[in-house]
Structures are given as C-alpha cells and as structure tokens.
C-alpha cells in the first residue's frame, strides 16, 4: 500500500512535469486576462460580431500622441516610431476620411438636406435657402468657387456636410498625418496581437523604452496594452514581495517551533509536488493556466504545509515513536480532510466557469499529490523530526474561544448593516497614476475618451435600420446640446433612409427648381441652362462608415463621452430594435451571477461534505465538525464589511478555501486524543499562521481581486482556528 502510493506519487509527478515542459514549448502558458475567467457566453451571433468589432476599436487600440512645435520633427518621429512598431502594430490609415466621404456624397446632393434646409423647405421658404446661399457666396471669406456654385447654386451640400461634421472630432490631416491643433500629432495603432499577450507587450515596451524622442517632442501613450502590462508587472512584483515575506515568515516559524530544517524540507517536497501536479493536470485539460488559478493553487501551500505540521507534531514526547506511528496518528483526520476538500473542489469543477474549473482541478489534484507525499514519502525519508516538547501556547482556553467566537458573531452582526455586494468589473482595472495622467492628457487634447457606448440597431430592412437611427439622431443631438454626451457616429448621419431621400428630392423639386432656380441663377449671373440637381440618384450605405455596419440590417451607433447624467436606457425607450451594448455592464452582470453561483456551490459542497462526515461520525458530530468552518464562512463577509470591504466574486471564491482549511482544523482538533490536544493545536496554530502569511499578506495587494482574496482568508482562518479549539476532546469522552 505504502509502496503503491509512493509509486503513484512518483509516476504522477513525472507525467505532470512532462506535460508542463510540453506546454512551455509553445510559449509561456499563463493567461492573465481576467475575462478569460468568464464563461463563453451564449450570445447571438450578431452580438458576438458587435463585441468583436468593438474590441477591435477599443481594446486592440493603442494611441500615441506626440507634442512638439515643429511639424517636421513630429513627422520624423511618427515615421520612425511606426516603422519600429511595424511588427506588432500598424498605424491606422485615416487618409482624409471626410474629403473622401464628401466626394462620394456630392453626387447625391439633392437627396441630402440639413435639418435647417428641410425645415425651410417644408415651410415653403425657398427664399431663405436662396438668401443663405447668396450670403455665403458674397462672404469675403467664402470658400465657394465657380465650379461648386454651378453644380450646387443653393449650396445645399456644404450646408449638409457642415451640419454633419459638427460633432466630429477636432482632428485634421496634414501631410498624411492626423493633427490635433498645430502642435499635436496623433497616432492610432491597431495591435496585431492581443494586448494581453506577453509577447506583444514586451515588443511594444522594448520599442518605446528604447526610443528617445528628439528635443522638443514629448510622447504620450495610452491603450489597454499598457494597463495590462503594468498589471502583470505589478502582480509579479507583489507576488515576489509578498511571496518572499511569507516564505521568510514560514521558515522562521518552522525553525522556531521545530528547531530543525527537516520539517521545512519535508514541506517543500509536499508543496512542490502539489504545485507541479496541480499545474500539470490543469495543463492537460487547458492550454493555458490562468493567473488566478495559480494564485488559488498556491492555496495548496497553506493546506499541504498544514499536513507537514500535523505530521511533525504527531507523537510528540513519545520516546521511540516511529514514523509509522506518526502517520497512524494523523491518517484519519488527514484522509477525511483531503476527501472533504476534494469533494468541495470537485463541485466547483462542475460550474461552467472556466476559471473556477481550473482552480478546482488545480487544487484537487495538487492536494491529492501532497497527501500522497505526506503519507507515503515522509515515512521513507523522515529521519526523526518533530516537537521535542509541547507548550500550551496554542491551546486556547475554552472560555477565550467562546469570547472570541462571540465577538466574531457580534462583529458580523454589526457589519451586516454595512454589507454590500459589488460586481463592477471596472474595479478590476487597476489604473496606475502615471498611465492615467498620460491618458487624461491625451483625452484632454483629442477629446477622445473612454466613455464610449455602442448601440446595436436591428431592423427588417436597410431602410428600417436607417429610419430608426434617423429618429434617434434628434434625441442624441438634444442630449449632446445639453452636455450629456460629447458626440456620436451613425451611418444615418450621412446616409438618410430611402424614405427621407425621396422626401428630400420632392422638397427640392417642389420648392427650389423651375422659376425659383431661374431667379436665383440670374442673381448669381449664371446662365439658366444649368441643371444642378439630379433627382434620380439614391445614396446607399455601402462604403460609408463601414465599421459601423455589421450587415445590411444590423448597424452600430457609437456614442462618445457619455456622461453619467445620460440614461441611455430611457433614451432608447420605445425603440424596439435598438439595444445598448455595455461590455462593462455585461461582464459585471456575469460576475454577479457567478458570485451568487459560487455561494450556492459552497452551500452544496457543505451539504456533500456533511453527508460524507455523517457516514463516518454520525449526524450530530458531523454537524458539530462542520459548524466550525461554516461559522467562519458565514461571519467572514460581514466582518469584512465592517472594514468597508465589499463582497465580490473573489471574496466568494476565497470562502471556499476557508471552508476547506477550516474543516481541516476542526477534523484534527476533533480527532485529537485528550493528551494530544495541545500538540494538535500547535499544529493548527502553525497552519493558521502560515496560511495567514501565505494568503493574509495578499490583503495588502493593490490589485483588487488579490486583495479581496487575502482579506477573506485572513478573517476566515482566524475564526476557524479559534472555533476549532471548542472541539477539544472533552466532548468526545462522552462517546
């Protein structure tokens, strides 16, 4: 049995190592995009398409703004940068979008009327249109020329275009480059890979770090890629700092209590085998390991170190205790602990949440490996470790336990009033100050901003879709005028629906042609044989703002600079075919769903564990045992709320770990014989301390998810440990 276990352990380890090595050949197999934790949503194909289009626009975009007084040096820098970034990002070719657009639209001028012109013509005031055109032609600074006036004597087209361009951005083209004012050159890049890819990030960082802008040129940058990169770097920095601190703490704790390095080495073996097997098994099922799964997987450290503590504390003070005796002393609670935790994790694996599944598989397989290591390998290599004597330092007086436990309940009750859930995904986006400053500068200069929303407009026909947009546009104009949004883009801004184009044709032919035109031409000094307005051409949307057209009957509308004051849902009331796409809100909602689901899973896990324990201990004792971790799980979120913490998906995930570890404490206390209770509590205390060092320190992280995780563990483990001493063996004596 022992040998078989050792063999299984060794073989598993080798297989997992091979898998890890294999995956590493295809690149660094770690996923850092938080969104990868989320399930692949079942979305309608057009919604998926819309999201992909928006992602291209927003996430895969990198913006660099160059400031300098001299256009030539700006241009040189822009050319140089774009050349160096060529392999990872291509500069967006804007050309002169609007000149092209204008050329395209001009032929359809009789079908395109500005709102003012339409109003005048509907009121029968052709004289107003004529006067406005004359005023413009007579203006000393008129940009009209003979050719333009001959083709459009009422200047209908400039009026239309000017009205349409009112809400466009403040950029212009100069020598093929996009300029904002005179001294800012704007470069908009499209990344060729995911901004979350380490390779893309490293490449861009390499180029920008090695790039020295000449005197007088300042470079500002923004984009998801920079935030993602900083996030990873910060994560790694913190991981090494916090990991280092906790490692030192755990080493000191070991040396202090056991006065030997051997327990440490044993722990190290159990942990390493756990992590290797966890990662290996995960990588069999998944191509990449998620960073969060890894952090959680590190939870194994907490648990498998506990096993070592219990092993080393076993048989304390017994002369001639063999390794086998030690194992026999702990095998029952250890096995129950592993089985219960694994059951809990397996339930987690049943969720459709890829992130949770990875965590479950990682934890479950790693835990079993560590368990095998403790019971099969330790006896083979242990050369007499263990406590020489036990002090009562870790044994809490029952009264104290009650007092502390009572305090926890009171704190939880007090915190209940402040308890609040928070699923806002934007909390996950950590915004480092320097990047934020650059971003806000770019925003200020370009008036581009992040508060972009997209609407999806669906209809039966092209005309239907354009017509809906036409009805929305006046509402958007009003909202823009009132300052609730800075601008918008819609195909119907440039392409009126067929209905409206025909109406415009009619308005033009009824009011502006015939004798009215003759009169107007005469005033201008043009011969009356001019036929300026073709009434047989209808403009189609193909080729105009193509990026907003998913198909003929599905269009996007883009709202820029949306203020909180704008209730988009209210705006859309009554528009059946129009929906808002708010990715942040959609993801937040998913977070909420999974937060709730994670809690149900914990409840279900409790149920399964209770059934398992009841079979072995009987209902009453199983209930007492389970009460310890359940108390911790229930009170922790409320106590955290007292400190202003909100309850998120990550807190819920941490509660699962609290359940697993808390149950171990309870099992070991409960299984301890009367004369062994002190030593078991020493092991429990050391487990709790090391878990707090390994996890509790995460509470100091700046990354929200990690912080939430750490805080929950810190509080939950403390409560579990305190309550576990209530299970001291007096109760068992009555059995």
């Amino acid at each position, binding site marked *: 049995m022992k040998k078989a276990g050792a063999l299984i352990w060794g073989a598993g380890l080798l297989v997992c190592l091979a898998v890890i090595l294999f995956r590493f050949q295809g690149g660094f197999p770690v996923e850092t995009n938080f969104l990868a934790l989320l399930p692949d949503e079942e979305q309608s194909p057009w919604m998926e398409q819309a999201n992909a289009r928006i992602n291209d626009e927003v996430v895969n975009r990198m913006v660099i703004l160059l400031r300098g007084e001299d256009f030539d040096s700006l241009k040189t820098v822009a050319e140089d940068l774009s050349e160096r970034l060529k392999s990872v990002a291509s500069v967006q070719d804007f050309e002169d979008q609007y000149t092209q657009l204008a050329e395209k639209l001009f032929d359809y001028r009789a079908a395109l009327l500005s709102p003012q012109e339409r109003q005048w013509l509907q009121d029968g005031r052709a004289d107003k249109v004529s006067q406005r055109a004359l005023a413009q032609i007579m203006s*000393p600074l008129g940009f009209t*020329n*003979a*050719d333009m006036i001959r083709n459009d004597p009422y200047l209908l087209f400039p009026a239309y275009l000017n009205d349409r361009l009112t809400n466009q951005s*403040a950029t212009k083209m100069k020598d093929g480059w996009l300029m904002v004012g005179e001294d800012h050159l704007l470069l908009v890049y499209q990344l060729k890979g995911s901004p979350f890819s380490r390779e893309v990030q490293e490449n861009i960082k390499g180029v920008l770090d090695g790039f020295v802008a000449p005197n007088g040129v300042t470079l500002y940058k923004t984009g998801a890629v920079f935030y993602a990169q900083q996030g990873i770097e910060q994560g790694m920095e913190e991981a090494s700092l916090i990991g280092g601190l906790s490692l030192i703490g755990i080493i000191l704790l070991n040396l202090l209590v056991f006065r030997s390095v051997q327990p440490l080495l044993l722990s190290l073996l159990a942990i390493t085998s756990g992590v290797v097997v966890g990662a290996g098994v995960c990588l069999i099922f998944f191509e990449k390991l998620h960073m969060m799964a890894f952090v959680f997987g590190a939870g194994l450290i907490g648990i498998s170190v506990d096993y070592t503590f219990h092993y080393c504390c076993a048989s304390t003070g017994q002369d001639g205790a063999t390794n086998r005796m030690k194992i026999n002393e702990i095998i029952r609670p250890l096995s129950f602990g592993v089985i219960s935790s694994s059951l809990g994790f397996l339930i987690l694996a049943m969720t459709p949440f890829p992130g949770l599944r990875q965590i479950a598989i990682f934890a479950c397989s790693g835990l079993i490996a560590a368990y095998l290591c403790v019971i099969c390998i330790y006896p083979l290599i242990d050369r007499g470790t263990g406590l020489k004597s036990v002090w009562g330092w870790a044994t809490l007086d029952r009264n104290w336990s009650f007092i502390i436990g009572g305090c926890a309940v009171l704190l939880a009750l007090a915190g209940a009033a402040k308890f609040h859930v928070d699923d806002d995904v934007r909390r996950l986006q950590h915004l480092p100050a320097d990047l934020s400053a650059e971003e806000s500068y770019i925003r200020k200069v370009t008036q581009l901003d992040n508060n972009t929303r997209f609407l999806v407009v669906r209809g039966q026909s092209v005309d239907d879709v354009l017509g809906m947009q036409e009805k929305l546009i006046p509402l958007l104009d009003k909202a823009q005028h009132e300052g609730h949004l800075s601008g918008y883009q819609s195909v119907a801004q440039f392409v009126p629906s067929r209905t409206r184009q025909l109406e415009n044709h009619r308005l033009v032919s009824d009011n502006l042609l015939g004798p009215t035109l003759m009169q107007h031409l005469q005033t201008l000094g043009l011969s009356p044989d001019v036929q300026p307005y073709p009434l047989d051409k209808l403009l189609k949307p193909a080729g105009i703002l193509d990026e907003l057209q998913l198909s003929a009957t599905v269009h996007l509308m883009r709202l820029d600079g949306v203020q909180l004051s704008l209730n988009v849902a209210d705006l859309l009331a009554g528009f059946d075919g129009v929906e808002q796409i708010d990715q942040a809100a959609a993801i937040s909602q998913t977070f909420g769903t999974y937060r709730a689901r994670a809690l149900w899973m914990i409840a279900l896990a409790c149920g399964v564990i209770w059934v398992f324990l009841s079979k072995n201990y009987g209902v009453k004792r199983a209930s007492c045992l389970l009460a310890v971790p359940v108390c911790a799980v229930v009170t922790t979120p409320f106590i955290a709320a007292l400190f202003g913490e909100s309850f998120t998906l990550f807190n819920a995930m941490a509660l699962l770990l609290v359940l697993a570890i808390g149950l171990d404490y309870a099992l070991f206390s409960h299984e301890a014989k009367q004369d062994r209770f002190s030593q078991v509590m020493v092991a429990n205390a050391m487990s709790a301390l090391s878990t707090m060092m390994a996890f509790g320190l995460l509470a100091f992280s700046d990354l929200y998810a990690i912080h939430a995780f750490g805080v929950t563990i810190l509080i939950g483990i403390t409560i579990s440990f305190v309550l576990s001493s209530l299970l001291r063996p007096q109760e068992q004596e009555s059995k």
Partner: protein
Amino acid sequence: MRLLTLLTLLFLSVSVQAQERPTQLQDGETLRGDFTQLRYLNGFNHAIKSSGVFEFTEETGLDWQTQTPFATRLIVSEKGMVQYVDGVETLKVTPDKFPALSTLHEVLTLSMTGAWDQLEAKYQASLEAIEGGWQLTFKPDGEAPFEAVTLTGAEYLDQLVIRKPEGDRDEITFSNQHVTKARP
C-alpha cells in the same frame, strides 16, 4: 489725446511720401469704414456685387455687415467664422475644419492692424511703392488655396484682391476708413 492723434495723423498725411509705411492700429483702437466687394466667378455672366460697412479690432476680429443686396452679417475671429442672415445664424465654421480660415484671418489681422513688417517677413515679400501709396503681393503658403493676394493702400488698406486657382477673383475696395478709440 484724441486731438493729438488727429494732429499726428494730419501731419503724417501731409508729410507722407509714396514709400512711407501705412498707419499701425494701436491697442484698443477700432478701424471702421465702408466696403464694396466684387466677386468674379469664372464663366459667370457678371460679377456678384455687395457692399456695406465693416468694423475691425484686433481683439474681436472683423465684423462685416453687408447692406446690399440684402442684410447679412459675418464675424471672423480667431475662433472661426459665423454668418447671420436676418439675425439668424446660418453658418458657423471653425478653423480646424477649414484650415484656410486661419491663413485668411492672419492676413486680414496683419493688414488691417498695419503690421506690415510681419506680413513681409512671413511671406517674404516687400512693400512696393506705387503712385499715391504702396502695394504688397504674395502667395500665402500653407492651407489657403489662393494664387495670390494683393494688398493696396496708402494711410490705410484700400484694396484687397484675392486670386483663386480656378480663375475666380475677389476685389474688395475700402473707403471712409477711420480709427477710433474703443469704448471703455
């Protein structure tokens, strides 16, 4: 002070020689006068004629009030150009949409304030003496699509001629120009 200015002007106008430089507008002063504009469009039967009054200060820009054939008003400043017909805004253009506007605004400001040195330096042209006054001809670089701009004047700017590429031409003639202190 007003008297002094007048006397100075009088003195200057007496002593001015053909090659002397025109008056410069001081801070806070307003230039007012009448104008007649003829716009020649290539292939059109006759020029489009308009006339009215104008007012210029360096701070607020040019206020161009056409009276015939009908009343319109145009205000050109750094911020762009706004046109009103019957008191209703009918056109608003900002320089970032029509970069040529900045060039025109600059030429107007420099010539109306009499900052000829800057005009000469900027366009590498020099004032030429002609009979009864002076003339400056140049081709603005940058965004403005003009073939040539010719400024003619004596004490003040008297005529502005802009030639455009397609054979169009604007001739603006100023008269009754006078400078007043801005109202406090």
